[in-house]
């Protein structure tokens, strides 16, 4: 609960940033990653003198991965605790309702994890997604690469399995649309609810289709389970791509290290050459003992975007200031750890994701060509 009503707005007190995160429930794992990213941002900002000369202070509530809660949380943060700024929660499903609260209180709403198209179709005027690309564009480089292969090598058939979740489906169907347009036939297309734990039947159908390509629209655990179930059936595709799961640090051990050739899109690389990234990776590693992953980076990016606006506009409180912040973000380019970002009218970023691939027990960027750390393996080795 919050007790410090209102005193923090304006003046010389700390700038309070209100955030609600899924620290428990379905999205708790990535939710915690986002929390770390936000904390790293606050520390780095404060260590270098704060924003507008004021310290920043995070006020983080747990929404239990529950859409009702997330609304109540932002309601409380904005209406009752009178925070100066808000950052977004994790996952499309929570971003949409909370963005509305922020909108109705006129707050700038930069968010780290509302990647699905839905988010940008609500007509929000204050929302910006702080990452390079929306879900449907995650596989753009991969699609280009596959379709550019010589006809005899190009895969003929593909199987898709996606969680019934706006983000997960967005990634898989983004690729599906492009491959189908390029002549790759869809031979299996499965959707499963978020709480599915038994993937054997889905795997059986995919294996039975003998598709050349398997694409999983996954969050984390569902990806792991699907891969294990496919391996239990001894299915060996030429190409296997799964969203988010393979970039998780736990991934390899979760599937018994049988990771050979698995692909995944990512919006972030620890080795990316962007100016602020080096500082971020260093300081983050110092603070948490391990280098940042995508979720942490997206959170950090969110902080960077808001900080840039605050610094440029020169204010950080509720009221008129917020509209000025929104206008500034809309009109400017912001340099972040995932690269320079700009947004269209709906708050959609205009970039693309890179493609990573597992080989020899490590995950490396393989696409696009100008950023690659390793060669793209195709057809993939057996897993």
């Amino acid at each position: 609960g919050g007790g410090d009503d209102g005193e923090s707005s304006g003046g010389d007190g700390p700038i309070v940033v209100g955030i609600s995160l899924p620290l428990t429930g379905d999205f708790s794992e990535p939710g915690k990653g986002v929390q770390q990213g936000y904390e790293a941002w606050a520390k780095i900002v404060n260590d270098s003198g704060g924003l507008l000369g004021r310290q920043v202070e995070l006020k983080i509530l747990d929404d239990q991965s529950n859409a009702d809660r997330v609304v109540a949380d932002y309601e409380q943060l904005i209406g009752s605790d009178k925070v100066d700024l808000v950052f977004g929660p994790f996952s499309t499903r929570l971003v949409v309702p909370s963005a509305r609260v922020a909108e109705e209180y006129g707050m700038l709403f930069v968010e780290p994890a509302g990647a699905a198209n839905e988010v940008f179709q609500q007509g929000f005027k204050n929302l910006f997604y702080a990452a390079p690309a929306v879900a449907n564009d995650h596989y753009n480089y991969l699609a280009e690469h596959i379709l550019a292969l010589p006809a005899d090598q190009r895969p003929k058939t593909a199987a898709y399995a996606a969680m019934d979740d706006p983000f997960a489906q967005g990634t898989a169907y983004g690729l599906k649309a492009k491959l189908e347009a390029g002549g790759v036939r869809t031979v299996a297309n499965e959707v499963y609810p978020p709480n599915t734990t038994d993937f054997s039947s889905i795997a059986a159908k995919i294996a039975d289709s003998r598709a050349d390509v398997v694409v999983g629209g996954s969050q984390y655990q569902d990806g792991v389970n699907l891969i294990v179930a496919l391996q239990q059936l001894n299915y060996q595709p030429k190409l296997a791509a799964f969203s988010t799961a393979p970039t998780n640090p736990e991934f390899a051990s979760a599937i018994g290290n049988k990771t050979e050739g698995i692909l995944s899109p990512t919006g972030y690389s620890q080795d990316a050459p962007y100016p602020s990234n080096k500082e971020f990776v260093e300081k983050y590693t110092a603070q948490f003992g391990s280098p940042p992953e995508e979720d942490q980076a997206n959170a950090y990016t969110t902080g960077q975007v808001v900080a840039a606006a605050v610094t440029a506009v020169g204010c950080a409180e509720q009221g008129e200031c917020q509209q000025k912040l929104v206008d500034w973000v809309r009109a400017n380019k912001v340099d972040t750890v995932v690269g320079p970002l700009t947004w269209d009218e709906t708050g959609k970023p205009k970039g693309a994701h890179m493609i990573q691939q597992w080989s020899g027990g490590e995950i490396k960027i393989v696409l696009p060509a100008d950023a690659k750390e390793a060669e793209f393996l195709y057809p993939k080795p057996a897993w």
Partner: protein
Amino acid sequence: MPSASDTVTAPGAAPAPPGPAAGRPRLGRVLTIAAVVALAAAVLAFPGLAPNPYILSAGIVVLNYAVLSTSWNFVGGFTGYISLGHGALAGLGGYGTGLLVTKAGLPSLAALVLAMLLVALIAVPIGFAALRVRGASFVIVSIALVLIMLLVFQSWASVTGGSRGLVVPRPFPDLLRPEHHRVFYYLYAGLLALALGVWWLIDRSRFGLGLKAIREDEDKAEALGTPTFAYKLVVFVVSAAFTALSGGLYALWFGDLDPVFQFSILTGSYMVLMALLGGVRNLFGPLVGALVVGTALEFFKGSFGNTPLHLVATGVLLGLVVMFMPDGVLPALRNLFARFDRTRQSSIREVSAAELRDQRLQSTGGKA
């Protein structure tokens, strides 16, 4: 005394036991009326007193719970059929309203009322299936209802939006958020008053007594000429209609519907918890329960914010109620008062056979 309790002496029980007991019902009635007036005043004054919009929105959540659990109590309290699936009816009300606004383009209020009617209509076949079975099987069916609805609303994405959810446009787009809250607060208060009024009406009616007879022994009630199935169905539909109204209002207020939360067993079980905590045989039982539980939920959230201990607290609370106050807070309080008044506790026949004969001779004397 507005109460479904069967232990309470009926008003105007003329030859009832003499002594202190005789004066009590009247005093009790005065106290009750005073309490009701005070409660109503408190409810109406709340928005003016709420320090900020967040508290006001919490008030709406509590009122929503109060309406839901009062609606639940039409079935649970009268007939004793414990439904853990009423959350599904609220969800249907919410989705119905939302879909009618977004897909059919109806104005919000019309959508709300039409959705209520539709849910009442759907409740007929649902009730038809569910009420055929009793006791534990009914509970299972009610749980199944939620799970089915969840499956359907998650999978039938082309209509319901699936797990992407459904966004319901605001009924009053021009209102600022605090004003919006205030309007919905009063709408909910009105709905609560309506639900309470109908419950009260049924409670004191013959229909209500028939429902209570069903609760006690369904076959017996049937043998006495109560059309038990029709009675159950009617009250189920009434309950469903109020639940749907509450759910629909919520959809209009909240704006974002997600199947996972609209069709959650937890919603239904909160209704049960609240009604039970307050006392299912009492008009104000569910309301009291909602005040306690709703406030407690907000409080737990405040104090254990980032742990799942709110679940632990809910579980412990429900367990304590079931173990120690199975009749609810209100009856427990009444028993507490009754303890000072032991005169009416005896159940043994207080007249000997000889006295009984004498009485009888007197009464039959005239007839024979």
